């Protein structure tokens, strides 16, 4: 579904990603782990076209997408949940969702009612300004908003940050269900536990390079990885 091949990404002059490569197959949940500042978000942004890589290639469903505008990628079926939420502060919750609405390519797709089922808390505050929401509410809204685009590939950057434990569990259930419905997910997480529970495979990124990769079991078994990155 998604192939990232040796991308190099810069912010201005500073070189952040040094040849990151990763693959996500149709229907997989793949997680991207690493310390603060390792380059997880940058990888996500590079895929989404927000910080286009200077070198390397990215293919989505076999088609090269480097240099394409973000809105085109969104229309091709990629949705992105940024780690810092980026809620439209002046729009109400409902409007935040409506603005993101895209017709589903297949089937009925998502609509407001359906995302409210995942996050019932949002329904009660439908008319509240996005900027007034609590941190957790904003996070829910960011995820819900991404779903409204009916993506085939979902880029989730730290979805559980600031969510209460109950909600984290609920979210995990939902992601699992989404995967069953055919959604592909690339997940960047600090909440290692949750990430390990969810994912099929994982990549560990450090200083802008992929350090380890493998199935969850392999990662869990690797002593060094456990010590250095997972701390579990």
């Amino acid at each position, binding site marked *: 579904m998604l192939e990232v091949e040796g991308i190099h990404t810069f912010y201005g002059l500073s070189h952040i990603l040094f040849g990151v490569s990763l693959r996500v197959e149709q229907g997989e949940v793949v997680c991207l782990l690493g310390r603060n500042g390792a380059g997880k978000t940058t990888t996500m942004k590079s895929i989404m076209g927000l910080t286009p890589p200077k070198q390397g290639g990215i293919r989505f469903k076999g088609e090269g997408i480097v240099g394409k505008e973000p809105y085109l990628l*969104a229309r091709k079926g990629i949705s992105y949940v940024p780690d810092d939420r980026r809620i*439209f502060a002046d729009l109400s919750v409902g409007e935040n969702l409506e*603005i993101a609405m895209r017709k589903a390519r297949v089937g009925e797709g998502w609509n407001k009612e359906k995302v409210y089922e995942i996050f019932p808390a949002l329904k009660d505050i439908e008319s509240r300004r996005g900027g007034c929401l609590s941190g957790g509410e904003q996070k829910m809204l960011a995820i819900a908003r991404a779903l409204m685009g009916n993506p085939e590939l979902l880029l989730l950057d730290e979805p559980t940050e600031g969510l209460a434990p109950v909600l984290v569990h609920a979210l995990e259930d939902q992601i699992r269900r989404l995967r069953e419905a055919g959604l592909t997910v690339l997940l960047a997480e600090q909440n290692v536990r949750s990430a390990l529970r969810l994912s099929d495979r994982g990549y560990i990124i450090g200083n802008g390079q992929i350090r380890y990769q493998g199935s969850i079991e392999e990662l869990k078994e690797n002593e060094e990885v456990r010590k250095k990155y997972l701390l579990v």
Partner: protein
Amino acid sequence: MQLGFIEEDGFQMEYVLTFGPSELACQLLVGLSRSMLLFIVTAGLSLVLGVLRVPNIAHGSLYMIGAFTAFTVSTVVGGAGGFWLSLIVAPLAVALVGLVAERILFCHLYEREHLMLLLFTFALMLILGDLVKIIWGAEYRSVTTASLLQGSFMIFGLPFPRYNLFLLIMGPLVAVALWLFVSKTKIGRISRAAAVDREMVGVLGINVSWVFATAFVIGCLLAGLGGALIAPTVSITLGMDHTIIIEAFLIVTIGGLGNMWGALIGSLIFGITHSFGVMFWPQFAIVFPYVAVVIVLLLRPRGMLKSVW
């Protein structure tokens, strides 16, 4: 309000207020029609402010181009047909200018600091001003409206120009059209979202660039229409841009920046206080707009209606 120094003009004034209700009503109508014209111009400015978040200083220049184009069309075609045609051609011509400017220059700058865009529109104002001079020269121009709209009729015993009645009709028409546009295209919503985070709107699959282009072109269209509408009532000259632009900015500010209905309210405040103002304190006309803004902003620091800024 009394500015003490005015008395030093050396005139002994015997000012008699002889206004009855009919004069007041007439003045109200005049004020309303003025408001409608202001609204048409400022709605465009407000749209651009709200969607692109650009204080478009060149808006006045576009308005001036509208007036000059109306002049050309009216003189070439002549007669009533010329006037009506100018109302269509002038806005379209200005919209075309806007489209070209947007696609060639503006659209590369959206990522920049808003103040950089201010600098850009300033440059645009300088360029357009001189282009108008190159194309149309410096002479005063003047056009006439269709004979249907010439002259005035009596209301409450005072003359009321027919053309002002025409403006009273045009204003609401434009308002309705704008309302349809804004609600049909979700542009209002997108603009409020883009105000916070332009990039994120793109991430949601919305082509911000085209939304902006559309908004900008419609803003230009309105500026052109405003220019064409004012053309028959004034002398069309260079410098029309300067005259209108500050007033237009003040209007959208007191209305609530980027809020189209704010532009309507602001225009009403300006038009009506102005027309009553010149009745009661005609000597102070020059400071009315400023005083109005100061009062409104001190009472409502973010304008009358909800704003994007």
